[in-house]
């Protein structure tokens, strides 16, 4: 029997029982749609985080005291601004080195109050990270060296405190100390779960005085090119270890952060896809079940086809194709449903989703495989039917 003919027969058989075929397909549709949609959401989230980490700037090296590993206790930072001079000598370009001391502070302007993440920084921050100003100017080297009480507000914080008024030149109090607003950042949105529009940047010296400390929390270095990151990382850690022999220092690159986050999200996506895959399996059992019913119902037809010369294989192929047609049609519909769901989620919810060809291809391939696997038993049963018995069946 020609394959084209077998397809035609299978299609006819499914058309003859439209409702039953649709209901059987539904299991596969839901399974495939769930796989496609969940993988899309996982992939979208991963891409968003990657974009955010990359959006920080390029070739970044982050240096913090302590070890970065699970279960290690947080280390109180021994770093001070004196260490920065040493690092500047290693790096050879002070505009590539940024520091931070962070603290959550209440910020007031007149009667309005906001809670902000105060970042004590050097004037180099915009050259190390990607931070653009919406209005005004950033901190200057003089602001940092003199500990001037000036502040650059995040877009969200500026809106909270000043609504539609221009904040430039106005006073705010941070932790009870007055600062003058000299700039406002462009909105950035959420990044790694942190609202970065709620930041306020002040000179690191002013922040240290406000907090009554000499410490700084971390150092960020922008390497001149990707190849030198490793070398630079070793040199900086060595210089810091020499100055603080009792403390471990860790240097991580963006790529390492991305790698760890990517791994975690990859596992999560895989687990979600596997759970969705179970529903696909259940759908496959449904297909198997309905195919057995179909074989029983059409026993007479099988007997007749055998009587006029169908080989066992012809009958088997016919029923196998029917099962495969059920699951692949379900697979295509499921891909459309899952893809549509992902697009709607991406468009109308804050959850990002990105369709990937591999997940669609995988889901479709699995649905075809489900058809073959769950169609084999009914097909074999049909192929092996004794024509005499089959013809006699009422």
């Amino acid at each position, binding site marked *: 029997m020609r394959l084209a*003919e077998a397809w035609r027969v299978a299609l006819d058989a499914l058309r003859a029982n439209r409702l039953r075929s649709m209901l059987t397909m539904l299991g596969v549709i839901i399974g495939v749609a769930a796989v496609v949609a969940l993988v899309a959401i996982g992939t979208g989230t991963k891409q968003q985080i990657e974009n955010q980490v990359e959006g920080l700037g390029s070739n970044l090296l982050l240096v913090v005291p302590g070890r970065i590993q699970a279960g290690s206790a947080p280390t109180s930072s021994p770093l001070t601004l004196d260490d920065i001079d040493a690092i500047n000598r290693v790096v050879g370009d002070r505009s590539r080195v940024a520091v931070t001391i962070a603290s959550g502070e209440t910020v007031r302007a007149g009667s309005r109050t906001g809670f902000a993440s105060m970042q004590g920084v050097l004037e180099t921050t915009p050259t190390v990270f990607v931070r653009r100003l919406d209005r005004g100017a950033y901190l200057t080297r003089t602001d940092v060296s003199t500990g001037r009480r000036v502040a650059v507000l995040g877009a969200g914080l500026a809106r909270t405190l000043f609504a539609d008024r221009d904040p430039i030149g106005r006073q705010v109090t941070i932790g009870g100390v007055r600062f003058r607003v000299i700039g406002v950042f462009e909105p950035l949105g959420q990044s790694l779960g942190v609202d970065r529009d709620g930041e306020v940047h002040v000179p690191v010296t002013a922040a240290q005085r406000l907090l009554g400390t000499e410490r700084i929390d971390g150092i960020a270095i922008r390497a001149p090119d990707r190849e030198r990151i490793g070398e630079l990382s070793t040199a900086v850690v060595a210089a810091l270890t020499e100055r603080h022999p009792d403390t471990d220092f860790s240097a991580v690159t963006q790529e390492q952060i991305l790698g760890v986050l990517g791994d975690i999200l990859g596992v999560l996506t895989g687990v979600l896809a596997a759970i969705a895959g179970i529903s696909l399996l259940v759908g496959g059992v449904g297909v198997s079940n309905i195919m057995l019913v179909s074989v029983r119902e059409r026993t007479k037809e099988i007997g*007749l086809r*055998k*009587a006029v*010369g*169908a*080989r066992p294989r*012809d009958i088997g192929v016919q029923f196998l194709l029917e099962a495969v047609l059920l699951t692949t049609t379900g697979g295509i519909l499921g891909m459309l449903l899952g893809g549509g769901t992902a697009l709607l989620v991406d468009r109308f919810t804050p959850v990002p989703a990105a369709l990937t060809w591999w997940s669609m291809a995988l889901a479709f391939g699995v649905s075809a495989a489900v058809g073959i696997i769950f169609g084999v038993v009914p097909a074999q049963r049909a192929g092996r039917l004794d024509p*005499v018995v089959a013809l006699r069946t009422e």
Partner: protein
Amino acid sequence: MTAAIVADDVSRTYQLDGVSVPALRGVSLTVEPGDYVAIVGTSGSGKSTLMHLLGGLDRPTGGTLLIGGRDVSTLSPNEMAELRNTTIGFVFQSFHLLARTTAQDNVGLPLVYRGIGRRERRERAAAMLERVGLAHRITHRPNQMSGGEQQRVAIARALVTGPSVLLADEPTGNLDSATGQSVLALLESLVDDGVAVVLVTHDRDVAARARRQIVMKDGLISATR
């Protein structure tokens, strides 16, 4: 010319729940091309079993059976299927047409298993329907046709492959006598073309029209006329 079917001391025993039930107990029979044989007997006499064996739907458990000169005991299931396709044509009491399928495609069905394309199948099926007098029913479905017409479609289906033997199991059993007569006349016209026609019936009038009658009783041929 070689005989279409030669059965020599053929027996068939069924195993039912471990009990051996003999349905045929040694039947010898030769069907020549152009033969017209009626197999008669009461139900349970073994005539249906004999019919299934002669049609290659089943294999004997004893004796030798040659269909188209080939010993069925040496044939694989696929070769048996091919034998049924090329040498035998079946006509059943209850027609066994595929519902929701036109007369033309029902008749073309055996050609599907020869790998013949749809266009040629339809051409040959249409020609065969014309021969059985149903040129006006080509695109009708079984439920749009009378019993006699359905049986003619079934005969056309049996003939489309050009078989040397046509086996008919109670071909007039579901038809009124006038329709039955015309179906029989159609079968008899095949005999003149050199096709061997073997029909199973318990209708004496039908059997009487055949050239030879074989009377079955308790799994044996009890008489030939």
